[in-house]
């Protein structure tokens, strides 16, 4: 076992799956000789050649559409969207086609496709390179949405996604690509799509997060832990289908919930968690359900002070934890 970054774990998962199954191929902008804009596919073109690692035109609609066609005909495409911000031209393909084909054809066709997309701000990317898109796509039945928060889960979940017979949107925290490091076992293992993970046990309040925010929540929980506040941290990992049991069980234990997400607050993913807790956990509620999220502005600002104002980080999260613990 060795320590790897998030992006190394992702690359390793693709490498192993390409070697394991000849039906797997990668397509996307600059994924070939260049190795992708974030170097996720670095070295794979040399290893697997132009029929397995295919550079695409600058057209997300066609990247996904090609993936759907290939998947329906027995291949297992990994479509890379360079930035999650760019996925919207493929929205119709994903929502109206990929997510519905199994249902529409009465089970005759499946779409075993993975769409990988780096999401999130904090990297000085401005409006078009910082967005969080998980809420929009988690709303769609028939599409699985996965966001790993650490290298171990990233490798195991991506392998599960590639082997899954349904379309999976695999979102990667680009800020964490080289920031988040962790032990990753050599060789084959999977982390199942679905179950959430209680990454820190606590008694005073539960914090729900995923991806980059989970990383920050760990730091914040550590910080307030020194003040005697015991935080339970739930890493959701799979946003759809959601592991409601884990979500509710933790809430039953603590009675207080804070949901942290980077996407803008209004109708963000945390709204659904809050609604489920209010609906099915009402008798266990000991405080208002709180959300800490990005503000409702049209984009993550380019200016660094404004970007800091936008992004939830360890300090803001710790303050929210203190406020909820004191309620």
């Amino acid at each position, binding site marked *: 076992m060795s320590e790897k970054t998030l992006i190394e774990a992702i690359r390793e998962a693709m490498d192993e799956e390409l070697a394991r199954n000849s039906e797997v191929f990668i397509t996307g902008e600059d994924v070939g000789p260049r190795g992708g804009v974030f170097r996720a596919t670095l070295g794979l073109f040399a290893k697997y050649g132009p029929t397995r690692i295919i550079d695409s035109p600058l057209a997300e609609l066609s990247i996904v559409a090609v993936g759907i066609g290939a998947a329906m005909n027995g291949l297992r495409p990994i479509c890379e969207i360079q930035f999650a911000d760019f996925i919207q031209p493929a929205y119709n393909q994903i929502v109206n086609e990929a997510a519905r084909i199994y249902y529409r054809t009465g089970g005759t066709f499946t779409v075993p496709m993975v769409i990988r997309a780096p999401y999130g701000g904090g990297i000085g990317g401005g409006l078009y390179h910082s967005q969080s898109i998980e809420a929009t796509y988690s709303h769609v*039945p028939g599409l699985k949405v996965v966001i790993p928060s650490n290298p171990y889960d990233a490798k195991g979940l991506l392998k599960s996604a590639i082997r899954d*017979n349904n379309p999976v949107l695999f979102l990667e925290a680009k800020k964490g690509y080289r920031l988040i490091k962790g032990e990753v076992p050599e060789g084959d293992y999977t982390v199942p799509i679905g179950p959430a993970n209680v990454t820190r046990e606590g008694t*005073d309040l539960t914090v729900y997060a995923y991806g980059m925010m989970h990383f920050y929540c760990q730091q914040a929980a550590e910080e307030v832990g020194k003040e005697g506040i015991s935080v339970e941290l739930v890493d959701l990992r799979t946003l759809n289908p959601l592991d409601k049991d884990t979500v509710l069980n933790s809430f039953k234990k603590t009675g207080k919930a804070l949901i942290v997400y980077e996407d803008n607050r209004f109708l963000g993913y945390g709204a659904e968690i809050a609604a489920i807790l209010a609906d099915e956990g009402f008798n266990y509620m000991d405080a208002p359900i709180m959300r800490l999220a990005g503000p409702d502005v049209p984009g993550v600002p380019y200016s660094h002070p404004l970007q800091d104002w936008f992004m939830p980080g360890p300090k803001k999260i710790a303050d929210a934890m203190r406020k909820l613990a004191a309620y």
Partner: protein
Amino acid sequence: MGTQVIMPQLGESVVEGKISQWLKKVGDQVKLYEPILEVETDKVTTEVTAATEGTVLKLYFKEGDVVKAGTQIAFIGAAGETPPGGASGTPALEPVMAGIAQASAVAGTTGNGNGKGAGARISPVVARIAAEYHVDVSQISGTGEGGRVTKKDILAYIEKQSSSQPAQGEGQRARVEPQLEPWEQPGLGELFRPSEEVFGKPTTPAAPALLPGETVPLTGIRRAIAEHMVASKRTSPHVTTVFEVDLTKVVAHRTANKALFERDGVNLTFTPYFVAATIAALKQNPLVNSAWTDTGIVLHRAINLGIAVSLGADGLIVPVIKNADSMNLLGLARAVNDLADRARRKQLKPDEVQGGTFTITNHGASGSLFATPIINQPQCGILGVGKIEKRVVVVTQAGVDSIAIKPMVYVGLTFDHRILDGNSADNFVTAIKQVLENWV
């Protein structure tokens, strides 16, 4: 100085009363024992009298208000004196009787709480735990925002209470974890096998929806009847035994004595005959005049007979003839008339509807032949008297059968099978039958 007028507790299980009418207004002079107001409960309507003489200085409630027993409702003193709460200020609603004070009404000034908890918001989880463990939240010191009682606070309080009183009611504290129905939501379950997931599982049928209609609000007496009936059925195993009684001699006696009784101002009905026969049978079978307790069957010394009186659509009430065995037929007839009359006019005193040891219900008055009434707890039995009607019966005289027309009645005893068995119950009804059939 001055004297408070307190809402009385009108019966053992009665916790509140409605002020149906003020008989005095502010400024009126009252004499000692003079009625001040009329109070209505689910059992009775009664007058509250003055415990002192003086001037009515203040009435704290309006007519129609429902007030907890023990609450100060008026103030009597010397003319010109200022009553508590000022002559026209806000009413002083503080209950004065210890133990009846409801925490919600008093702002937590007593007890060991910090007083902030009662006014602050109570979260759903704290409310649920308080209900499950029977905890008064106002007694808990809150550590949350603004002194709010948090989940941790109430759990710590329960922990402390149970460790300091280990003997008290395990069962009461036993916590029932509610079963959460799994919520079938395809979007959150296994996504792509909806046909098996949703349609394959057996579903429990939902409670049938009520058809649209008018809802009649529950009156106090209707609610009290419902509670008593359900509690009784849950308490004792009910068994009913029915006998047929020949009333030839009773009818003859009544016909002969009706005018005589009328001279004494008493309307002689059949009910006193059944009451008298029941008293005689109870004396012969003391086990029937009893109550079940876990430590043993309590045989009552007194025979206090309850008579069920219908109030029509308003429900039913059971006034009690105390020490009924000390009365002759005339006394019983007078008592039955008086109680039934005052019951219908809601003029019964609280103690006249309490302390019964056995009950008679005359369901025959509305045409019923026989019935299976519900026991008036904690009594052992209830006698149901059906409609008296002429029937064709076979009589045997000197070994010869013949057909005769006789006034007959079905008399049924519903009894608590924990106390009586079929044989002992039948002996009791047989005794009633013998008294009635051999009436002289």
